[in-house]
């Protein structure tokens, strides 16, 4: 089992193997993404029952919650890839890390934007200094920091190592930031704001949400792979297999 894993790990380390293997997966992944997202969207927008308190504005949840979940998970993907790149000097992991940053930042921005729009009919204001929203905003800052550091180095290798360190430090900090923001919020919480808990959701509302979450995970993987493939071509452009690839293109 262990040797099998090690073999797989070594194979994964080869950008060329990754490029060809993902080339075979991509159509299926694209299909899963498309089916989940389209079904989930239609289900959530037209067929899920209306929320008793919030009316139809709650339908934003089908995009807000999956995007926020992936924004958070994306930071860990980035940090883990960065750690692998730092420790085992795996080139592929560096490329994954570089690709993950803008995707995560975009999803965080989607989460913030949809949250703000949802807030207007629900709380009467676009922006509320609520614990979760504030944490998302700080997460966006963390992403932007990693991206800014990544783009400011001339040497790609240095940029990767530096942003990997920053991503790791950020990961260590995220629980502390979340706890502190939570504590800060309970300190200043106005009594009028009440939140609807996800656990009390009606199954008819929850099922399309589950589908959207699966769809977003597939979408994230798809986009991450597409970006990593571009990075691979960019960095391996002097090798023979990329030359052969161009012959086919």
């Amino acid at each position: 089992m262990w040797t099998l894993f090690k073999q797989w790990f070594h194979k994964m380390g080869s950008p060329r193997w990754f490029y060809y293997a993902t080339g075979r997966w991509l159509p299926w992944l694209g299909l899963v993404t498309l089916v989940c997202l389209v079904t989930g969207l239609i289900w959530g927008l037209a067929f899920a029952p209306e929320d008793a308190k919030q009316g139809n504005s709650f339908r934003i949840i089908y995009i807000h919650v999956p995007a926020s979940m992936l924004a958070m998970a994306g930071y860990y993907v980035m940090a883990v890839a960065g750690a692998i790149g730092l420790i085992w000097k795996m080139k592929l992991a560096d490329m994954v890390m570089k690709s993950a940053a803008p995707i995560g930042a975009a999803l965080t921005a989607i989460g913030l934007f949809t949250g703000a729009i949802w807030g207007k009919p629900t709380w009467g204001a676009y922006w509320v200094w609520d614990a979760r929203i504030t944490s998302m905003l700080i997460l966006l800052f963390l992403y932007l920091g990693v991206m800014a550091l990544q783009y400011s180095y001339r040497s790609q290798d240095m940029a990767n190592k530096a942003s990997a360190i920053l991503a790791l430090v950020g990961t260590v900090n995220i629980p502390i930031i979340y706890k502190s923001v939570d504590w800060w919020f309970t300190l200043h919480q106005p009594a009028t704001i009440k939140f609807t808990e996800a656990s009390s959701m009606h199954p008819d509302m929850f099922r399309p949400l589950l589908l959207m979450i699966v769809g977003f995970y597939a979408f994230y993987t798809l986009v991450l792979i597409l970006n990593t493939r571009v990075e691979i071509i960019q960095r391996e452009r002097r090798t023979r297999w990329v030359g052969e690839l161009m012959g086919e293109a």
Partner: protein
Amino acid sequence: MQQFDSLQAFLSMGGHGPYVWSAYLVSLTVMAWLLLRPVIKRRQLLIALKKQQQREAMFGQTGH
């Protein structure tokens, strides 16, 4: 459309239409951009590399 009687009702979302539709529109636009960006980048990169390859073949260089 189980929840809505007409297309009109679906679009207005019981008064919350502008919020719901703008949230979805912007999010889907950003996601489409996320998806298209690597595709376009890949195509441009391959074209550029092909040109470079041809140029190098013409002058008989073997790369740097």
